[in-house]
């Protein structure tokens, strides 16, 4: 690597991470509910050294096993700073660090520093990647750099024959997120593509693929054995209630994809895919190509949550963009317009700014408009002072972790559906709590789940198309806490009294 490229890369990393951290610190709240789950886990690991697998507050008390490496990393960092700050800073540093493995991979594919730097720049401005990871303490801020680094190590194995870093990084990835299976499948698909294209598949590649397959299958079967036995094939969709399946695994629209990934990376990825399928052959490009192809297929067949799928797809597209840039540069040199090279680069740069950077800015602005979170958090903090022990709060699943974190109370349900028997029933009962016209059935449900409070904020009102609880009354269901548009109702009567 040239020194100039290295400095540029470090500068890019510093600029991106500074901007991200600066933006993230503008609000004390997180944009995603899952961040509060991570926060609780980090605090628990910090205190006890172990993850909170037996959570006494989630779903009124349940077991939930998750891959803990990301949480351990954050817990380690939280030894030096408050956990909330760590969750704002560290994931953004990790997300920005993607530029390094991405640079290495694109450089390996194109053998050009320029293309690699530009690719890293494009990847750091991908709208969906920035919006979804800037203020959510998302685990993908670690999985993506690891995945891209693994792709680089895998591609390089034929030249250096040293699998040490691949083994270490792969083990780290399987302890971080199940997306390791995505990489394994992509590697297998790559071997298939290379074979069908008549390219010689090296023995070392097959060996690494086999190792990755065996290790991931062994680890995940062992780790998720209870969930596998409990849910069977439903585990693919995370045991989501049927009514929510369409939201998480919905069909993707072309316009959304263009905005989320960015016009230039997406079009260049499509062009490169067609080019290397139809005309040219280059083995190193088949791995990111097969990854992109696999994720696109999974999105099409609703096998991966839309947001996760788009994040991974966008990064693969930005890798393919590097190859596209290299190809275009070469092509440009052969034309009469080669003198206008820098003008062309400038135009391309402007298009990237308009189609990636501007959607990013707009998206990020929305991420930090969190009056809803602020209201709900304030109400829940007040609740933590007045609520009795062992009582549960009913709220929509997307706010379940906020309830456990701020109110320190049990929730009726949250967004971690694994290990929950019949989440559809919970979902149905929750809907009844908010939409029932009469009090008897809600009382029955509240007693079943030991619910004492019902949270009603704008998000809930919008979700169930209600303005208040129809059965609320001063005697039986009075408003216990009211802060701006957020209300918390308290159950003051029991089913027997009511009858």
């Amino acid at each position: 690597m040239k020194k100039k490229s290295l400095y540029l890369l470090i500068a890019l990393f510093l600029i991106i991470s500074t901007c991200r951290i600066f933006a993230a610190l503008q609000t004390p709240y997180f944009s995603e509910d899952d961040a509060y789950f991570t926060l609780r886990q980090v605090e628990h690991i910090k205190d006890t050294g172990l993850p909170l697998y037996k959570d006494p507050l989630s779903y009124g008390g349940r077991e939930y096993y998750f891959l803990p490496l990301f949480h351990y990393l954050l817990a380690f960092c939280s030894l030096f700073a408050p956990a909330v700050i760590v969750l704002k800073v560290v994931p953004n540093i990790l997300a920005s660090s993607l530029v390094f493995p991405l640079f290495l991979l694109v450089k390996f594919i194109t053998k050009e520093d320029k293309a690699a730097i530009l690719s890293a720049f494009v990847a750091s401005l991908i709208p969906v990647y920035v919006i979804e990871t800037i203020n959510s303490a998302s685990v993908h801020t670690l999985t993506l750099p690891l995945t891209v680094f693994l792709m680089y190590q895998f591609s390089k194995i034929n030249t250096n024959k040293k699998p040490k870093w691949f083994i270490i990084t792969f083990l780290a990835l399987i302890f971080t997120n199940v997306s390791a299976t995505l990489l394994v499948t992509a590697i297998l698909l790559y071997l298939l593509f290379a074979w069908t294209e008549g390219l010689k598949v090296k023995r070392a590649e097959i060996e690494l693929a086999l190792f990755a397959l065996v290790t991931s299958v062994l680890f995940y079967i062992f780790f998720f054995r209870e969930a596998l036995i409990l849910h069977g094939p439903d585990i693919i969709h995370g045991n989501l209630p049927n009514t929510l399946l369409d939201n998480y695994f919905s069909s993707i629209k072309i316009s959304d994809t263009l905005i989320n990934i960015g016009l230039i990376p997406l079009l260049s990825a499509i062009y490169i895919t067609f080019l290397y399928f139809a005309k040219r052959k280059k083995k190193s490009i088949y791995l990111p190509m097969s990854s992109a192809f696999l994720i696109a297929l999974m999105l099409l067949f609703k096998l991966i949550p839309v947001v996760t799928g788009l994040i991974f797809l966008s990064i693969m597209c930005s890798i393919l963009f590097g190859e596209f840039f290299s190809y275009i540069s070469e092509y440009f040199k052969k034309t009469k317009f080669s003198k206008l090279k820098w003008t062309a680069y400038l135009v391309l740069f402007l298009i990237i700014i308009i189609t990636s950077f501007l959607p990013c800015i707009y998206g990020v602005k929305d991420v930090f408009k969190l009056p809803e979170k602020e209201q709900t958090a304030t109400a829940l903090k007040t609740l933590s002072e007045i609520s009795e022990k062992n009582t549960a709060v009913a709220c929509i699943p997307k706010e379940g972790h906020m309830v456990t974190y701020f109110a320190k109370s049990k929730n009726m349900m949250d967004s971690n559906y694994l290990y929950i028997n019949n989440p559809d029933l919970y979902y149905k009962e929750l809907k009844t709590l908010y939409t029932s016209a009469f009090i008897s059935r809600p009382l029955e449900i509240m007693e079943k789940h030991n619910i004492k409070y019902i949270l009603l904020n704008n998000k809930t009102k919008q979700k169930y198309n209600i303005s208040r609880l129809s059965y609320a009354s001063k005697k039986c269901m009075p408003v216990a806490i009211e802060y701006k548009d957020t209300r918390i109702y308290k159950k003051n009567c029991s089913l027997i009294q009511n009858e």
Partner: protein
Amino acid sequence: MNNKETKIITGIILIIILALMLVHNTKPTTTPFFGIEPYYHQTKASQIIDDSFEFKNKFSGQNQDNNGEPYDYILAAFTVILGKQTTSNILPIITGLITLILVYNLLKKTNYKKNFRIFCLIFIGLSHAFIYNHLVSQPFTIVIPCTLAALYFLLEKNYTKYFSVLFIIITALLEPFFMVILTVPAIMIMYLKKENLNKRLVLISFVSGLITVIIRLVTLPYLGNKTILSGNFLVNNLNFFGSLIGFSLFAIILGAIGLAVSWKRKLDNSPIYITIILLIISSIYIPSHKIFLNLIICFLATKGFIRLLDMKWELIVIRKLSSIFIIIGLIISASIYIDTLNKHTPSKGLVNTLNILKSNSQENEIILAHPKVSDWTKYFAKRETSWPINESILKTRDEDRAINFLRENNISYVLLNKNTKEIMINKDNNPGLNFVMENSEKFRKIIDYKENELWTVK
């Protein structure tokens, strides 16, 4: 077999057998056996011994007299000598030991190398279907070693080869359909193999086997007793989804590699492919056939594993790690399976409830019990059970209809557990018959113990 080899093989077999025996200690002390089948067969065996063998499976509207199967008579014979619990627990382990010895000798006879034989024993010993077959007493506990013995003696050259006829007949008696399936590859082997096989003997063995099958089918209703497999294919066949007789994913992956390796000699191996196809089809109807299919999968998995080890590896560290992970995977997979098996035992609460039922009820009284707990009820409470063909009656909230149904079928007690309560929930998501029981004076709750309730009908 040299001295070192003998020690290794004896060691492996002893470890597997010892492990099987130790697994018996993992189940609750209140439950004598794993699974459901041992209770069913042991109840029948006890009735054979008591000379009062006329077992009735009462269904509302019809009575089916169900005579004992040959396996129950074998079990009864052993029970007289060893006692109930020892027979149902020790007999499968002994047959497991015989199975492993036979597999080893069969592989040796067919010229497989030492490494292959050792790994094949390890793969079989750690396979879930083998663990099931030699921990849970049921007909295949004897069928598998008998089949292997028949194959072994068929390859013998001295007078002992005629023992094969005997073992084929025993297999045919115990599992007629399994016998039919084995006949097809046997005929193929006859025409394909030119050496080491007495074609005439194969013909005599299998013809006598088929005759036994015909006699058996004519004299006894067979298919009526069998559970037709229903539900999800993956859940029923892959162990990590909780299947009771299923396959480990590792064995399947390695088996697929082994199949690819064996494809080079596809004509010679065609009987194996045909057997696999036939067993896959038959196991849809008779899940126990998966136990034999498992032996073939383990054989192929060993082929796959040996191929992986023999392959020229560029990355030595990856070779070592992959082999270690595969072996660890098989061991962990087996230990997880034992966990699954443990969940298929009657709970302490149920056993206590059934003991109370036994002391409260008369011998001729009938119990309404879910089919899943029916055999446990017969074993522990020693009472006949009943379950309606049309389950809609259990969802009713009509007191008169419920009482009429129970009286028509002479049901005096109702055993409520989690499964029964789930079935009783009607389409409005409300409890059915259990609601009637709780609100009617004609029912009285005798005991409510850890999700198990016992009600009597006045």
